[in-house]
C-alpha cells in the first residue's frame, strides 16, 4: 500500500500542473459545499442560541399555535380569548409546574422629558416572568407580586431603552410615560441581544394587571408562560396543562382544543423545515460540482492511462497482477481527489472564518466535516477512477509493450 502511494505520488509529481488543475475541479466543488454548509450551520447555531431565550422547559399557552396553515389560523382567530384568570386557574392546579406568568404584548411609545421612543415592546407580566425567561436585573429590582396585586404604575426597562432615554445615567427612580401614562422605573434588565433580528432590549415590563387597567382589557388576548418544575418534566407538564386548560375552557370529551400549547421546539421544527430546503439546494449544487470535478478526474486518468500504456506493459511483463495495476491507478485518482478535498476544505474554512469575522452572517465549519470530506474522496476517487484503472489493468502486456 505504501509502495502504491509512492508510485502515485511520483506519477502525480511528474505532471504537477496537470494534477493541480484536476485537483482544482474537486477543490471548487468541496469549497462550494463547504461555504454554503458553513453558512447554514452558522445560521443554525445562532438560531439555536437565539431561541434558547425562550427556554426549552417553558411552555406557552396561547389561543393559537405558532405555526399552522392559513385556514387553521383564521379558525383560531374566532376562538375565545384567554383571560388573566387562567393564570390563577393554572397555578392553583398544576403539579409539574414551578412558575406561571401571563404575557400580554403590545407595541407602544415611551417618553422621558423631550425624548421619545416608538415601537417598544410593552409586556404585561407577573413577577415569575424573570425566572421563566431567566432574566437578570442589573439595576434596581424586577416586578414583585405586590406590584401586580396593587396594580402599581411601575416598569422594568430593557438595556436599549435605558441607553436611548437615559444615555447611561441612572434610570431607577426616574419617571417616564408609556403611551401617555406615568410609570416609575424600578429596574433595568441585563442585555439580551437579538432574536430573529429583533432587539430584545427594546422592551418595558409592567405588571399585567396595571397593563390591562392602563391600556384596556377589551379584546385583549394573553399568552401564559409556564415553566416546568424540571426540564425532564416538560412533556408531563404539557399533558397536565392540556387537561387543566380543557377544564378551564369547559370542553366536553371529544371536543377539539380551542387553545394551543407552544414551546421552543415548535419554533425549532418550523426552522428545520425551512432550512431543510436550503440544505437540499446546497447538496444539489455541491453534488453537481463534485460530479463535474469527478469527470475531470476521470478524463485525466484516461489520458494518463493511455500515456502510460508502455509503462503498464513494463510493469505487467515484470509480473504485476491486474489488481496491482488497478490499485496503482485507483490510488492515484484518490490522491488527486484527496488533494482537492484538502484544498477545498482549507479554502472553505478560511472563507467561513472571514465571513464570521467580517459580515453579520455566522459561518462555521465543524472539524468533523473533514471526515465527511475524506468519505467523499474515497467515493469520488473510486467511482471516477474505476473505469480508467480497469482499462489499465486489462491491457494486454504484448500490445502495451509495443505502444510508444
Amino acid at each position, binding site marked *: 500500500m505504501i509502495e502504491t502511494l509512492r508510485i502515485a505520488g511520483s506519477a502525480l509529481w511528474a505532471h504537477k500542473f496537470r494534477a493541480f488543475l484536476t485537483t482544482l475541479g474537486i477543490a471548487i466543488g468541496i469549497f462550494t459545499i463547504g461555504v454554503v454548509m458553513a453558512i447554514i450551520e452558522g445560521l443554525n447555531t445562532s438560531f439555536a442560541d437565539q431561541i434558547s431565550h425562550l427556554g426549552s422547559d417553558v411552555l406557552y399557552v396561547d389561543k393559537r399555535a405558532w405555526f399552522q396553515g392559513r385556514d387553521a389560523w383564521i379558525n383560531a382567530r374566532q376562538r375565545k380569548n384567554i383571560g388573566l384568570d387562567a393564570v390563577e386557574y393554572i397555578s392553583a392546579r398544576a403539579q409539574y409546574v414551578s412558575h406561571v406568568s401571563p404575557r400580554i404584548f403590545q407595541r407602544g411609545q415611551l417618553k422621558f422629558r423631550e425624548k421619545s421612543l416608538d415601537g417598544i415592546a410593552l409586556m404585561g407580566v407577573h413577577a415569575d416572568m424573570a425566572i421563566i425567561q431567566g432574566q437578570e436585573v442589573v439595576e434596581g429590582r424586577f416586578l414583585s407580586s405586590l406590584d401586580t396585586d396593587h396594580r402599581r404604575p411601575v416598569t422594568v426597562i430593557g438595556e436599549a431603552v435605558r441607553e436611548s432615554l437615559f444615555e447611561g445615567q441612572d434610570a431607577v427612580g426616574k419617571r417616564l410615560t408609556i403611551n401617555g401614562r406615568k410609570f416609575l422605573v424600578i429596574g433595568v434588565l441585563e442585555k439580551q441581544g437579538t432574536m430573529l433580528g429583533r432587539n430584545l432590549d427594546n422592551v418595558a415590563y409592567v405588571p399585567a394587571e396595571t397593563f390591562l387597567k392602563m391600556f384596556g382589557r377589551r379584546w385583549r388576548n394573553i399568552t401564559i408562560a409556564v415553566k416546568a418544575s424540571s426540564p425532564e418534566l416538560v412533556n408531563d407538564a404539557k399533558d397536565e396543562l392540556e387537561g387543566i386548560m380543557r377544564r378551564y375552557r369547559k370542553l366536553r370529551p371529544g371536543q377539539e382544543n380551542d387553545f394551543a400549547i407552544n414551546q421552543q421546539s415548535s419554533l425549532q421544527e418550523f426552522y428545520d423545515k425551512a432550512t431543510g430546503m436550503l440544505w437540499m439546494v446546497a447538496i444539489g449544487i455541491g453534488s453537481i460540482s463534485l460530479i463535474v470535478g469527478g469527470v475531470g478526474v476521470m478524463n485525466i486518468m484516461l489520458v494518463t492511462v493511455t500515456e502510460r500504456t*508502455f509503462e503498464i506493459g513494463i510493469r505487467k511483463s*515484470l*509480473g504485476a497482477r*491486474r489488481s496491482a495495476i488497478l490499485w496503482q491507478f485507483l490510488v492515484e485518482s484518490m490522491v488527486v481527489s484527496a488533494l482537492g478535498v484538502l484544498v477545498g476544505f482549507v479554502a472553505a474554512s478560511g472563507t467561513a472564518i472571514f465571513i464570521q469575522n467580517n459580515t453579520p452572517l455566522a459561518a462555521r465549519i465543524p472539524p468533523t466535516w473533514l471526515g465527511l470530506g475524506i468519505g467523499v474522496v474515497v467515493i469520488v476517487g473510486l467511482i471516477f477512477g474505476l473505469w480508467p484503472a480497469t482499462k489499465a489493468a486489462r491491457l494486454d502486456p504484448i500490445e502495451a509493450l509495443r505502444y*510508444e
Partner: protein
Amino acid sequence: MSAGQPASAGNGQDPIIILTGVTKVYDMGKEQIHALRGIDLKISANEYISIMGPSGSGKSTLMNVIGCLDTPTAGRYEFEGELVCDVDGDKITRMDDDDLAGIRNRKIGFVFQTFNLLARTSALRNVELPLVYAGVSRKERSVRAREALEIVGLADRADHAPSELSGGQRQRVAIARALVTKPSIILADEPTGNLDSTTSREIMSFMDELHSQGNTIILVTHEADIAKHAHRVIHILDGQVASDERGAAAA
C-alpha cells in the same frame, strides 16, 4: 554471486520448458494468420539457446509464448512442471492473467531490445520493481537490488535515472532487473539490437558469464554473430522449427 544462481539446478535429462505442438493463430477478421504451426521444444536448465529467424518467422510469438506474455491457441506448454496451457481440441486448460503474471514474476527474467526501464525512476527502483510485485519487503528489496546492480557493475549508478545512463549501462540495469528475482530462465529479446558493436560485445560477454554461472539463457536474435554465443541454435521459419543444432560455441 548469489543473485546469479538459477532457482533449480537441473541436468540435460530434466527439461524446465516443454512445448508440445504449440500453435498460435491470430484471427484477423477475414483471414487467419498462423504465427506458430506446431512447435515441439524442450529446454533444460543451464542451456544457452538462441532462437533465430527472419522477421515474420514467428520467433517473436514464440518468445512471447515462452515468456508467458501470450498463450498458444493449441498445444501444451509446461514450465517447471507447472501447466501453463494445454489446448487439446475442446479441452482447454489455461492459466489466467494473474497466474501468468506470477510465472513471469518468479521464473522469467526479461531483457528487451528497448531496455524497457521506467523513465524518471532510479536504476535501483527499476531493479526493485519485480520484487515489489513479488511482495518482498522494502528492506530486502533494496539489499537484493543493490546486489544485482553490483553483479552488472553499476552499484555506483544506483541513483541515476535511465536518461542519465548510456545505452550499455541501461541494458545492464535491465539485466540486473532480470536477475534480481533469481529466475529459472533469462529471456533476452534482441538484447543488443539498440547498441553499437563495442557495447554489444560487452553485453554478450556478460551474458556468457551469466551462463557460466549456471543461468539458463534464451536469446532471440536475427544476428548470426550474436547467436554464435549460444550452445544451441534453433532456427524458426514459417512458424516451425527449421533446425535445432547443438554445437560447441564460444563459451
